[in-house]
C-alpha cells in the first residue's frame, strides 16, 4: 500500500466553504426545478394566449400599464445589486457592508411586494373572471410567493450576519441565499416580459 495514492496532495478545507458546500449545489438544482416551474407557468400562458380570443379579452382590459410594473422591476434589480454588494463585502471580511447590503436588499424586496399589492388592487377583474385573469394572478402570485420566501431568507441572513456568524471564509449560507434571491429577480424579468411586453408586441391581441 502506498500512502501517496491515498493521501491528498495538499491540506483540505473543512466544513462549508463557498461552492464546495453541499448546500450550494443543492440550491443550484433547486433553482433548476424552480426555473422549470416558471417555464411551465409561462408555457401555460403562451399556450392559451396563442388561441383565438375575442377583442379585449386577452389581455383582459387591454395591454397592461407599465406605470407601476416598470419601476418595480427596477427596484427588484437594484435589490439584487445590493445583495451582490453584500456578497463581495463578506468575501473581503467587511461585515458592516454584508449586513447593510442584505438589509437594503431585503427592504427593497418588501417595497416590491407593496407595489405589487397596489398593482393587483388596481386590476378591474378578479381572479375567477377569465383564463387571462387566472393566468395573471396565479403566475404573478407564484412569483410573489417566491419574493416572500426570498425576503425571509435575506432577513435571516441579515440577522445571522449581525450575530457575527460569517467571515471571509465562512460565508456559504450568504452565497446560497443570495443566488436564490438573484434567481427570484431573474425570473421576474421573464414574467414581466411575458405579461407586460409581449402584449405590446401584439401577442393575444
Amino acid at each position, binding site marked *: 500500500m502506498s500512502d501517496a495514492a491515498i493521501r491528498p496532495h495538499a491540506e483540505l478545507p*473543512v466544513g462549508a466553504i463557498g461552492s464546495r458546500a453541499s448546500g450550494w449545489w*443543492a440550491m443550484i*438544482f433547486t433553482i433548476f426545478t424552480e426555473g*422549470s416551474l416558471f417555464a411551465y407557468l409561462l408555457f401555460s400562458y403562451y399556450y392559451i394566449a396563442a388561441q383565438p380570443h375575442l377583442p379585449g379579452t386577452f389581455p383582459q382590459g387591454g395591454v397592461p400599464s407599465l406605470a407601476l410594473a416598470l419601476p418595480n422591476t427596477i427596484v427588484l434589480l437594484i435589490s439584487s445589486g445590493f445583495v451582490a454588494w453584500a456578497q463581495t463585502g463578506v468575501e473581503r471580511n467587511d461585515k458592516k457592508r454584508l449586513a447593510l447590503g442584505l438589509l437594503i436588499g431585503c427592504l427593497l424586496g418588501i417595497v416590491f411586494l407593496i407595489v405589487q399589492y397596489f398593482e393587483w388592487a388596481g386590476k378591474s377583474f378578479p381572479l375567477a373572471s377569465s383564463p387571462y385573469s387566472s393566468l395573471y394572478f396565479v403566475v404573478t402570485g407564484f412569483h410573489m410567493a417566491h419574493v416572500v420566501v426570498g425576503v425571509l431568507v435575506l432577513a435571516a441572513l441579515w440577522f445571522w450576519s449581525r450575530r457575527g456568524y*460569517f467571515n471571509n471564509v465562512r460565508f*456559504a449560507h450568504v452565497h446560497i441565499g443570495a443566488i436564490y434571491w438573484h434567481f427570484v429577480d431573474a425570473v421576474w424579468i421573464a414574467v414581466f416580459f411575458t405579461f407586460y411586453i409581449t402584449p405590446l408586441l401584439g401577442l393575444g391581441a
Partner: protein
Amino acid sequence: MSSITDYERMPDVAEAERRGLAQEMQRLWETGPGVRGWLSTVDHKEIGLRYIVTAFAFLIAGGVEALIFRLQLAGPNEHLLTPEQYDQLFTVHGMTMIFLYAGPVLSGFSNYLWPLLLGARDMALPRLNALSYWIYLCAGVFLYAAFAIGFGPNDGWFNYVPLAARAFNGGPNIDFYALGMILLGISTTVGAINFIVTFLRMRAPGMTINRVPILIWGTLTASAANVFAIPAVSLAFFLLWMDRNLGTHFFDTAAGGQALLWQHLFWMFGHPWVYAIVLPAMGMVSDGLPVFCRRPLVGAPAVALATVATMVLGFGVWVHHMFATGLPTISLSFFSAASIIIALPSAVGVFAWLATIWTGRPVFTTAFLFFASFILLFTIGGVSGFMTGSLPVDWQLTDTYFVVAHIHYVLIGINVFPVAGAIYFWFPKFTGRMLDERLGRWNFWLMFAGFNIGFFPMHIAGLLGMPRRIYTYADGMGWDWVNLTITAGSFVFAFGVLLLIANVVRSVKAGRFAGANPWDAPTLEWATSSPPPPYNFVVIPTVGGAHPLWEDRLGTEGETSHTRAGLVLDHGREAIGTTPVDAEPNVILKMPGDSLSPLCLALAATALFVGLLLLAWWLVALSLLGIGASILVWLWPRARLGETAGGAHV
C-alpha cells in the same frame, strides 16, 4: 481577516484494522436509541429500507385492488363491483403502482446502495433524505385516506379534464388526488436533488466519471429528469385544484380555457417519469447481471450513454400519448419519429446484456433468472411500444387493452422483475443473510408464468377491440376466454409475489449467513460487512477502476483500488467531498447528525395540504408558520457543521 488555511487540515491515513478505530466510528455515526432515534435518524441505509418496505406495502395494496377488479372482469356481466367502485379501484391501482410503488422502491434501493457503491459514508444531504421519505409516507397516507373514506381518485391515473373538473366530478376525490400528488412531488424533487448532489460530490477519491457503476447512472439520469419534469405535473394539479376550488378557468373550455393544456402538462411530466421508474431498474440489472455471468458488463460506457440518451429523447415524445387528440400532422409526425428513435438506445442496452450472458459463464441463481427474464419482457414491451409509437397503429389501438398490455410489460417487466432480482441480489447485504434459493425458483417461475399468462392475452383482447377502463362487457363479444385467462394468470402472478414476501420474512431470521461478499461481486458495497456498519467504511476507499474488487483477476488500469487503508476522517461525523468529474478530494465535509427537523417539516407540509383540502385558511397559515420554523431550525448556521466563523472546528 481570516485565512482559509485556518480552516484546513491534512486528513489522517490509517489501516482499517487500526485498534479502536471501528469503535470510534460506531460511536460517532450510530443513531440514537429509542423512539426519538427512530424518528430522527438520517442513516441512508435505514431510510432506504423504509422506502423499500413502504413501497412494497403499496405494491400489495395495488395488487389486491387489481385482483378485485380482475374478478369483476373474469366473465361478462359480472356484478361484483358498481361502476363507481370500479372507477376508484382502477384509478387507485394505477396511482399506487406508478407513483407510490414504482418510483419509491427504486429510491429505496438507490438510497441504500448509492453511498455504498460510491465509497461514501452517507448521501450528500442526509436530512433532506429523511425529509424525502417522511413526505413520501405522508403523501401515501394522504392519498389512501381518500380511498379509505370512499373518495379515492376515480378519473384514471392521468386524470383528464373535463371529467376531472368540478362540474363533472363533484366530490372531493380529485382534490385529494391533486393535493396528494403535489405533496408527493416535493418528496420526489428533494430526493432527486440529493442524488444529483451526491453524484457530483460524494464519490470516493479516484472514482472518476468513467468508473461509476451503471446503477448510479440510472438513478442520476432519472433524478435529473425529475428535477425538470416534476414541476409540470405539480403545476397541472395545482391549476386543476384552483379551477375546482377557486373558480379559475385554466382547463375550462367553455370559458376560453384549454382542456388540452392538462394533457400537455401531464405528459411533459408523464413520459420522462416512465423512464425515471425504469432506468434505475435497468441500472440494477446492468450491475447485477454481470456478477452472475462472471464477467464485466459488455459495453458498459455505451450502456451508460444509452441511459442518458434515452432520457434526453424521453423529453421529446410526450405527444405520443395524445395522437388521437386532433393535433396537426406535422406535430404528430415529429413525435412519432422521436418515439421510434428511442428503440436505438434501448437496443444498445438489450444487446449489451445479451452479449454479457453470451460471452460469460452464467450462474443460474434466482437473481440471474429475474435479471435475464427482464431482457425478454423489456423486448416485448419495447416492441408493443414501437407499434403504438407509429401513428396508424396507435389510432387503431389507443384506449384498448393493447395499451394496458404494453404499460404492464414495460412497468412490471422493467421495474418489478429487476426489483425482485435486486432483492435476491442485495438482500444478503441488507440483512447479512441469504434468501432461500429453492423457494426462489418457485417464486421466479410462478411470477414469470403468471405474468405472461395474465398479461400477454391483453394484447389479444386489445386487438379484438376490447376498450380499457370498462367495468364490464356484454356476452358474445368474443372476449370471455381471454379475460378469464388474464384473471387466472394475474392470480398466479400474485401468488408468486406472495412467495417473494414469504421468502423475505422467513430468511430475515432463518436465512444462511452471507458474509461480506457472498456473490464474489466487484463493486464497493461488497467491500464492507453485511449488513454494513452505520459509517459504511472505517476508512474511505480509494478507487482505481470500475471493478475495485475484481482487480486481482481483471488487472488494473494502472491504478489500484484500496479498501483496507484510506482516509480516516474522525473529527466528528465527516465525509470527503470530491470534484465532480475527476473525484479529486477538495473538502472535508461535516455531516449532520440525527435531526427531528425533517419529520417536523414533513408534518407541517402535510398539514398545509390538509388545510388546502378543507379550504381551512387558519390551518394553512398555521402550517406555513410551522414550515418556516422547521426550515429556520434546520438551516441555522452551526459551528459543529463548520458553518460559522466562530470556532474553526477543523
